[in-house]
């Protein structure tokens, strides 16, 4: 096999400002739109939740909205 000189483009630090999109796959139901939950203690807290009776999966949103304090 030919050796290539690839390299990492994005390397994540585990435990820092962690966000999980796991279990968001069914885009229609459940309590899904507390936008990405923080698991890291070293970042600003993400505590938001959709306060209406409607729920949306984070996967329903396709865009880079570069929102502050996501």
């Amino acid at each position, binding site marked *: 096999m030919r050796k*290539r*000189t*690839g*390299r*990492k*483009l*994005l*390397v*994540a*630090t*585990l*435990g*820092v*400002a*962690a*966000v*999980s*999109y*796991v*279990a*968001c*796959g069914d*885009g*229609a139901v459940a309590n899904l*739109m*507390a*936008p*990405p939950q923080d*698991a*890291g203690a*070293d*970042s*600003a*807290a*993400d*505590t*938001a*939740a*959709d*306060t*209406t009776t*409607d*729920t*949306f*999966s*984070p*996967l*329903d*949103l*396709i*865009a*880079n*909205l*570069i*929102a*502050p*304090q*996501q």
Partner: protein
Amino acid sequence: MAAELFELELYGDNVERRYRRMRPEVEAMPWGTFDTTGLPEAAVIMARKQWTSAAFQEHRTAVACAAALRALMECRAPLDLIAMASRFPLDELVHVEMTARMAMELGGGTEIQFEADHMIVDAEPGLPPLLRAADMIARFFCVGEAVSIPLLRATWHAARHPLPRAVLGRIVKDEAAHGVFGFLFLDWALESMTEADRRHIAVAADRGIGAVRALWRGIEQRRRDGGYDESPGDALGWLHSDAYLELAARSLETQVRKPLLERGIPISR
């Protein structure tokens, strides 16, 4: 499906050289010039998180563009319209690279866990090809891409450092075509659609609008809760919450709801 950590790599060698030839502007940006000295640690971590999240969202948007492109071909949309959309996945990949490199510039990516089988919400496979395309394009382009353009442009103007300015400027330039594409598609597709089809598109668009609004409610709640100093934001390349939310609400009205309603799409959100 097991969770995966969101990290990225380049193949290198000739493959990278070909890629660089397609989009030489990326390497011309002032990489390696962002000095975070003097910025609060919490602000830098937040910025790393924001840019990592931006890379993930751009990656998901690339998946969405590819899915929409396939649907456009399946429904035999006009060839020149498909050709226009064929550029979008590459645009998004370039955005993935730039935003990922911004995160690395600030100290490295943060942790995002995701499921590869669930990157986007596909249209129902049983739908006719035209409606399948319309369902995705309404959500991905008429809502997501259309509303993002004014927000990206304003963030670009707010960024002071040449590197995030260059990155955001490139994204703004590319996304302009993405933002109008959804409505160009609708202007063609609606010619052969029934009232029931229009209602289906409205439901799809409402779903996208609802997700956008839910995100913004989260930002508003965090702003009310306080506890985070936004003052380094423009140095790090993003808008302050108040300015963002005000522009977001206006943009949703003018860039999304108004053009959908003008085309007879009976959205309810």
